[in-house]
């Protein structure tokens, strides 16, 4: 939506094109190595206590450590070692997720070099101050070559600005005072002209600062769903404490001596360590996936809300249709041939630099191979004016005009010609189809009509079909009249549309949807969008938009691409699905672990319990150790899944659920039997038990 001043150089590399978000391999050594160190630093109990599940594992490790010191033995030490590794693996998962964000933050920090600002003094004088000292309300001057020192609003002037530092888009954009293009961001570079900027951000609160802390995960707060899940996991941990502790007296009653180390091992195996270990990594990675798509969410809450969205409000222009209307058809009237009309249309559009004008030339070439031609010296371009509502060309004695049908009709009548009878019908049917008719006349004769069409983006219909299968209603917002809107809406396949939309109508629509209990997401960029952005549950502001819009929304799209809303919804859903799937997996794993450990615990007292050892594990100690090793290794094995997210497909809720229950529920039930048996075979082979 940005107006491009000049055809800037193409993005220098793929990396830059993706902006701040450099996509990294899952096991990039730049991230893995520091993460391994972090994994040990995070062993601090004050850090661990925030995760109830892993805290219990840490306490358990201390208990088995004491046991191992008092009664040293290979088994006790092995269990202690693996329990310790379980905690370390969990920390590692979190550290890797954070590391990916931190790497991005570092890139950003380098950009936010120590800039000097040219602060305007009240007496119109100038003073050079460090950018960091700027306060809200200060005025600064930026000229070509200067870096914008902080976030602000242009109050005077117009300039082209290179925003590649934050968007990765190297084509410069126009920023000017007044209107919806007045916001500038700290760290971007002014390429031409001079502007006066009023600083709108507090110190340390600039967009760049917020972005750094967001991608770093420093300002990460647990999201509502994550809190609810943490409570459920804590409950599952609490319940297993008495279950396991009670085995001491139960065993005593049965005449069995129950080993404390095995009890701790059983406890750790039963509590949901898999999801407990990966929960925060999943959350961080979810934000990270957004950043990789150049979207900044101001809170994790917003990301979750995106997954819950039931109604999407989408601006027609730029989201559903390409920005401009394009010539799609030449419709001759009377006895005129189509090629004749195309030829005249092309002539009339040669000097027309608007996208609509260019598209006429392109269409004429496509259809009839009419090339651009040299006009003789005797020609005069007639530019479009708001009063004539026509443009054209006087050349070779011909007066060719194109424009609004009414204007052209009037002009032809003035020239002494007549209006062909079928013109009105064609104009009307073209309008009804959602297109704009342009009449073309050569002197006193009306040749026909050029149909200018809103071009619906390729693939958008399929996206909307997917949304529908997910239960999301799409509503197109447009300033067009209801007739045109209806035609485009049906072509694009949206569920509903709001025509002749005013900011008030938008706001009312959002409120109406919300009253029905729906969550609404929308995109916007103008100041007049701000109330609607604030009212919507998910408001995605375009980075090119005004500060007011960006502050009202809870996400900012750095690429200013409204279609991104669809991606955001998917990421939100994927986040929840990943958590749910791993929780189910974690709980389902318990069954196999019981079958490994319970016979091992009591086989001395009741040899008949050997029948429960259905995996045929070698010995009680190898059985317990295998279960604990499996429990630790599964965390490492699932880190990639946690970071990448469960694969998301647009399917109905029932299909998604069936699929996930099958993979993570039933799979989680069966898989550990196989893996515990394998580990046991390995331990037996190396005689480690």
């Amino acid at each position, binding site marked *: 939506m940005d107006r491009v001043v000049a055809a800037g150089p193409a993005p220098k590399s793929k990396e830059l094109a993706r902006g701040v978000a450099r996509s990294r391999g899952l096991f990039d050594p730049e991230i893995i190595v520091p993460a391994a160190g972090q994994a040990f630093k995070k062993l601090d109990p004050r850090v661990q206590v925030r995760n109830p599940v892993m805290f219990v594992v840490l306490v358990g490790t201390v208990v088995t450590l004491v046991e191992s010191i008092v009664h040293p033995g290979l088994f006790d030490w092995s269990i202690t070692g693996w329990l310790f590794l379980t905690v370390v693996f969990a920390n590692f998962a979190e550290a890797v997720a954070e590391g990916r964000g931190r790497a991005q933050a570092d890139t950003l920090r380098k950009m936010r070099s120590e800039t000097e600002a040219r602060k305007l003094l009240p007496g119109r004088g100038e003073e050079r101050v460090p950018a960091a000292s700027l306060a809200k309300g200060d005025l600064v001057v930026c000229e070509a070559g200067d870096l914008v020192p902080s976030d602000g609003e242009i109050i005077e002037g117009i300039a082209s600005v290179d925003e590649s530092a934050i968007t990765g888009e190297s084509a410069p954009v126009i920023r000017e005072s007044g209107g919806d293009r007045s916001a500038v961001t700290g760290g971007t570079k002014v390429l031409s002209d001079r502007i006066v900027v009023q600083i709108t951000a507090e110190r340390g609160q600039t967009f760049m600062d917020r972005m750094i802390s967001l991608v770093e995960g420093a300002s990460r707060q647990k999201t509502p769903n994550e809190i609810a899940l943490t*409570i459920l996991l804590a409950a599952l941990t609490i319940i297993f404490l008495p279950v396991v502790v*009670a085995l001491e007296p139960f065993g005593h009653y049965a005449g069995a001596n129950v080993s404390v180390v095995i009890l701790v091992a059983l406890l750790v195996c039963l509590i949901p360590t898999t999801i407990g270990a990966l929960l925060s990594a999943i959350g961080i990675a979810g934000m990270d996936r957004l950043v990789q798509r150049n979207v900044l969410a101001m809170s994790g809450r917003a990301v979750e809300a995106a997954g819950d969205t039931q109604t999407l409000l989408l601006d027609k222009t730029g989201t559903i249709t390409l920005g401009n209307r394009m010539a799609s058809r030449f419709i001759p009237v009377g006895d005129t041939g189509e090629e004749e009309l195309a030829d005249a249309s092309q002539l009339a559009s040669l000097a027309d630099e608007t996208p609509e004008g260019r598209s006429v030339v392109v269409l004429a070439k496509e259809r009839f191979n009419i090339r651009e031609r040299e006009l003789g010296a005797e020609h005069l371009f007639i530019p479009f004016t708001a009063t004539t509502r026509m443009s054209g060309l006087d050349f070779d004695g011909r007066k060719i005009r194109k424009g609004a049908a009414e204007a052209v009709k009037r002009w032809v009548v003035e020239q002494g010609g007549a209006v062909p009878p079928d013109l009105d019908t064609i104009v009307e049917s073209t309008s009804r189809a959602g297109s704009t008719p342009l009449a073309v006349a050569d002197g006193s004769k009306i040749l026909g009509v050029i149909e200018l069409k809103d071009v619906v983006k390729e693939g958008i219909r399929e996206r909307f079909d997917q949304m529908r299968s997910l239960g999301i209603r799409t509503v197109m917002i447009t300033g067009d009249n209801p007739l045109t809107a209806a035609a485009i809406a049906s072509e694009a396949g949206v569920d509903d549309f709001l025509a002749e939309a005013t900011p008030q109508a938008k706001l009312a629509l959002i409120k109406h949807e919300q009253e029905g209990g729906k969550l609404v997401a929308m995109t916007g960029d103008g100041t007049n969008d701000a109330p609607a952005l604030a009212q919507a549950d998910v408001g995605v502001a375009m980075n090119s938009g005004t500060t007011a819009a960006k502050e009202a929304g809870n996400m900012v799209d750095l690429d200013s691409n409204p279609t991104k809303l669809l991606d955001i919804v998917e990421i939100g859903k994927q986040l*929840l699905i990943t958590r749910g799937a791993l929780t189910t997996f974690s709980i389902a794993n318990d069954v196999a672990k019981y079958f490994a450990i319970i016979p091992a615990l009591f086989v001395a007292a009741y040899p008949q319990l050997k029948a429960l050892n259905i995996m045929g594990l070698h010995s009680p100690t190898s059985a317990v150790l295998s279960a604990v090793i499996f429990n630790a290794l599964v965390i490492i094995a699932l880190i990639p899944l946690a970071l990448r997210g469960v694969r998301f497909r647009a399917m109905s809720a029932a299909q998604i*659920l069936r699929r996930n229950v099958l993979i993570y*529920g039933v799979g989680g039930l069966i898989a550990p039997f196989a893996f515990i048996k394998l580990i046991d075979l390995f331990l037996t082979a190396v005689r480690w038990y």
Partner: protein
Amino acid sequence: MNFFLTILLLVACLALTWRFLGSYMAAVYEGRVSFLGWLERPTYRLLGVDPQREQSWQRYAGALIVYSGVAILLLYGMFRLQGSLPGNPAHLGAVAPALSWNTAVSFVTNTNWQNYSGESTMSYLSQMGALAVQNFVSASVGIAVAIALVRGLVRRESSTIGNFWVDLVRGIYYVLLPISIVFAVIFVAEGAIQTLAGPVSVHDALNGVHQVIPRGPFASQEVIKQLGTNGGGSYNANGAMPFENPTGLTNFISVFLILTIPISLTYTFGKMVGNVRQGVALLAAMTILFGVWLGVATYAESQGNPAVAAAGVKHQPGGNMEGKESRFGYSQSTLYNIVSTQTSTGSVDSANDSYTPIGGMMLLSGMMLGEVTPGGVGSGLYTILVFAIIAVFLGGLMVGRTPEYLGKKIQSREVKLAALAALVMPITVIVLTAIASALPAGRAGALNAGPHGFTEILYAFTSQGNNNGSAFAGLNGNTAFYNISGAIAMLLGRFAIIVPVLALAGVLAGKQVVAASAGTFRTDTPLFTGLVIGVIIIIGALTFFPAVSLGPIVEQLIHGRFF
């Protein structure tokens, strides 16, 4: 009667009442029925209650707790003063303090655990004025809580969940009393005893034996004992005593009465939330679990007694008949006891202790699932709704939406309360069983050594913690230790679940309803039924597997293979 015919007839009768009693109860609790207004109004005046004034969940729960506390004290007083009170033709003395305490708690919590023999301990006044009254009231309390939770799901942005006193009174007047009166007549006709004339002395000249036969107004108690899923027998032998359960017909009616309200409440639920299929989904989960448990137990009992088989007897054509009435046979007996243990009733017509290890395990584990198959009156519905909320939470996450049940978002507060309600019972049972098996006072109670003795202790706390009240027998529960610890289990198993459930009702009632869409995880489908079953089994199995493996499982393994 043929076992399968019995089941078919039972299903047919229950299907009828499911539809009609279910919609009638919805009408009762939505205040659409008022033909007993002449009885209701004076009752409210007596209680000093304004029936129009609704309560917040805190006030609702407060009223419930205060009422229950007063009832426990009242019962305790009546038992202690029994010797000096009228209505005592057998001249029974005061009930001992610990036993009075245990029994008072037991009947107020709808448990009806009995550490005594009714006929030799309780006077007619205690039976009628204390126990029978509580059989009605405690049942009505259970339904009231379930209805309050359903209201929480139905209402939008409401600060109230109903009026406890109104729900209590209407449940008794409109549901429990009319059904009890009708069926008591049938029981009397079949030969159940109903008299105030006191015990009779019989002199059997032929054998030279003098016998005192206790009698009492018991037919009228019998119906509400079953209908209210109470289960406390007037006689120690409970449903095995011909004066209580005289014929095959009364045996059948008993089973029907036990099941009718818990099952019909799923219709009431569906009706109140405006989609009967929601109720069907829960009923299906209850029925499938119940069917599996009944099938396994009946099969195990049909195989005969493993100890008898081990002694060299090849054929036991009548199945395991130890501890069973020859009037009913193993299949009808198993049906009765499975129904009774899976509904928090706890009445028995055969000795649980004498079931095969697997049969006994099914009785035990049926309770361990949390009494939801279909569970006690009201308590079955509210407990399965708690499981449904947990299932919705997991299922909702797996489809990528903030989980919602019937349009109500399930967020941290709801999960917290549901988890609390689901955890109370297992923790209570396991901790108390651990204490009992560790302390000499606890070990002294068990009759048998080894795994069977352990099962006796485990069963006692599982039964009391689930407000079931059936006894495995073999355990001497009338000791200070078991009277007091059992009462703790019953109180926690009842009120520590009811309070979070009411809080859940309050929180849900205050929420807005989210519109459903194709992306909403539907809760009226077989898939959801499967998920609820999964959650019930997983929570039950994961918490009780170690304990059960040290009891019935190892006992069965000692006798031979698993099946």
